């Protein structure tokens, strides 16, 4: 029973992490309609900020990571995505692939292809007793951070002027513009949010693994994409749901898979969306995915 509770908490923590990734991808998708491959590199660069700022007090390094994530996202949008804003979605996806490659290899060239270790506060690697269950502090942090982020995002979207503009633009971009909402600003804001979310994920990943590497963003971005697909495109709730499902599945598989199948955990997890898509081609929440129908 204790073990089950332990595994469930682990699963929830991982699911929260994945939900954060999926949210970061969805925020941009709902406003722009594009899936951003480079989101993984936003995560990676924020993580490297922690590495670079390792000498500073941890709080300062965290702030640096956050700023890095937001800045990179906004710069990439301005430089690479604005010129192709009018292109079709496949073209935008491929453009984001190009950006991802460039960013990944700039870091490889500037730092190193090998993983670098990052010192994290000792408290993070410890665990806290919660009754009979021993929960790693990192998982508390993850759950807590996710809750804070969701609350913050909710506040931003539903209680601020800017958030109102974003929600309107996400529903009907053209109509929002007709009312005077500035397209450029809304898009920049959505990328900024996406970058902030990426920074959160990057920080958590560093604390989990204790290292950074140029390719560390690859699996997360895939997780984000897959979560969005199985949740049903373009719905933030769907993304969170998809992320939770993926994370819980992954974690539980990790706990209960027989040892010889354990290395294939990722393979099984990523085959999950295919199974879902067979039965529900539009994802679990089934939002419209641009299927052509007259």
């Amino acid at each position, binding site marked *: 029973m204790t073990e089950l509770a332990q595994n469930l908490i682990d699963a929830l923590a991982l699911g929260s992490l994945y939900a954060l990734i999926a949210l970061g991808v969805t925020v941009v998708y709902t406003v722009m309609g594009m899936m951003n491959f480079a989101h993984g590199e936003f995560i990676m660069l924020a993580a490297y900020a922690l590495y670079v700022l390792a000498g500073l007090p941890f709080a300062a390094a965290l702030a640096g990571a956050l700023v890095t994530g937001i800045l990179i996202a906004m710069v990439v949008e301005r430089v690479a995505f604005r010129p192709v804003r009018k292109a079709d979605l496949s073209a935008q996806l491929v453009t984001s692939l*190009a950006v991802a*490659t460039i960013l990944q290899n700039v870091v490889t060239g500037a730092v190193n292809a090998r993983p670098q270790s990052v010192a994290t506060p000792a408290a993070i690697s410890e665990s806290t007793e919660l009754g009979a269950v021993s929960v790693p502090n990192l998982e508390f942090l993850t759950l807590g951070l996710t809750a804070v982020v969701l609350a913050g995002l909710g506040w931003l979207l539903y209680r601020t002027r800017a958030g109102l503009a974003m929600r309107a633009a996400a529903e009907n971009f053209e109509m929002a513009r007709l009312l005077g909402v500035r397209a450029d600003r809304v898009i920049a804001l959505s990328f900024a949010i996406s970058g902030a979310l990426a920074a959160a994920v990057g920080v958590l990943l560093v604390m989990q693994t204790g290292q950074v590497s140029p390719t560390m963003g690859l699996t997360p971005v895939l997780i984000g994409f*897959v979560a969005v697909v199985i949740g049903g495109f373009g719905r933030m709730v769907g993304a969170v749901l998809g992320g939770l499902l993926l994370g819980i599945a992954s974690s539980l598989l990790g706990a209960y898979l027989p040892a010889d199948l354990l290395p294939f955990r990722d393979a099984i997890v990523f*085959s999950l969306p295919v199974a879902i898509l*067979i039965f529900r*081609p539009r994802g679990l929440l089934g939002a419209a995915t641009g299927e*052509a129908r007259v």
Partner: protein
Amino acid sequence: MSGVGLRSRSSLVVSLLVPLGLIALTVAIGASGTPSLQSTVTMILCNLIVVLGLQVFIGNSGVYSFGQLGFASVGAYAAALLTLPAAFAALQTPGLPDLIATAQLGPLLSTLIAAAVCGLLAAVVGLPLMRTSTLAIPISTFAFLIVVYNVLANWDAVSGGSSGLVSVPRTTSIESAGLWAAAAVVVALAFKWSARGYRLQATREDEVAARSLGISVMGERLIAFALSGVLCGIGGALAVHQSGVLNPTTFYFAATVTTVTMLVLGGARSVFGAVLGAVAVASVNEVLRGVEDGAHLLGLLSIGRTPGLAAIGVGLILLATMIAMPSGLTGGREAGELSWFRRLPSPRVPAIRAARAIDYRIGGSIDQAADGVAGGSLQAEGVSVAFGGLQVLRGVDLKLPRGEALGLIGPNGAGKTTLVNVLSGFLAPDAGTVSLDDADVSGRSPTHLARAGLSRTFQAALPFPHLSGLESVAVGAMGVGVDRRRAVAVAAEVLTRLGMHEQAALPAGSLPPASQRLLGVARALATGPSYLLLDEPAAGLSELEGEELTSILRGVIEDFGCGILLIEHEMSVVMSLCPRVQVIDDGVTLRVGSPAEIQADPAVVEAYLGSSYLTAANA
């Protein structure tokens, strides 16, 4: 067949010879150089085959798959394991079944088996993936890539794990790579220009229009996906027999970006583009790799070790291409279609007055000669449709007999287009039935209806911009299963009868709007329909063009004997063409009658202009 082809002979020859020539040139340069250069060039040729695999799927379907290098990986591993000497196999892959471990096949056989394995895998994986939407495919294929990587990296006993395999026999010579590459070019071109390839291209050009012509989007994508898997598998197999080593990252993310860049730079729609892009990007890659290790530029600049420089270069090429030149260097055209060859003759479509080539009905349970069910009709009974609480159609009836023209008019928002969407299978009615020649087809897909003899056009012409007029119309016939040769003959005949044979060779996207509309009609006619639904064919036409359209449509009714439902707002066209007109307003039928009756009917006038108009007019 009297020499009507989709392209002139010289264009065909040039399109074939130029990429083959480029390959031959590459082989020649490589063969005459140092062993190191030979090795590099051989690898370039192997990559070219993978890029051609990408082209077959991505270029023709317009959908990006990021998983094709998963097939290259599988093909490479399969070929490696089949040729690995038993001793090495025992060392590196202890878990391999004895049959494979002891097998030591020759390069040709192992490549063929690898190709077959990949093709099978692609067919199996493609089945669920191609069912998903166009935007989900890039993501799910990306997931496939990572699954393949994960399995290969962890299945130590069979694949050698993340350290991979070594001592694979190096049997790929530059000449054999060149031959395989040439074969791949021929296959890619042959596929692109086959009936199947054209059907797939139609889904790329306009998915909605393609479905209305009887094309199964998922089916065509699946076949191309499988063929693509085969080609990528061959490329991978040859590559591993060139380098002798292999690990899961060989064909993974970096290689995916590189090959996609090669395809995009050349121009995804073009086979020649794939070859061009592969050679160009590979060359840049090699140069940059050299610089990565530190170099002196012209004796002036000194660059230290910069790993990742080549990949940055490739990424920048991709980014620049997407922003500035999204159609690539070739603009998606084959060698014989480029403007350098402007002087080459275009296919002529002679004025054919042959026996009607369109007397066919393909497949399914409806297998009849054109004059079979002379008394048949298309009928809607009690059709009702609501969109989220708004009732758009309330129990509408409609009867369209063969060989007759029925006009469908009504104010904006009356429900006409919705009715046509129901009749043509794009929308399922909430209540009521649609029957075609007494067979209930309610809720059947547009693809099914096209093959059953119902065809339509759209308010927006929905042309296939990059296909020529002749090709576009031929696709109509191919969509219902006619073979390529016959489809071209049918297309020629239809175009001639519609007076469009002089524009047949031009890309549909370059034609003026009136011609695009007419082309849409021709395309629908090529499916050999018993019933043709025309949605505002005269919109935006001048008065003169409208008159021309009217006489053409009149000829169509006489020659082809199909029933025509004409939605129009240009009353002159409707009134002069249709002996019967049905007026729909607010989701119900107001009146069915002759044009004169309609124009005089006060209820109709009121629907359009309001009652106070009538009062004033009669005052």
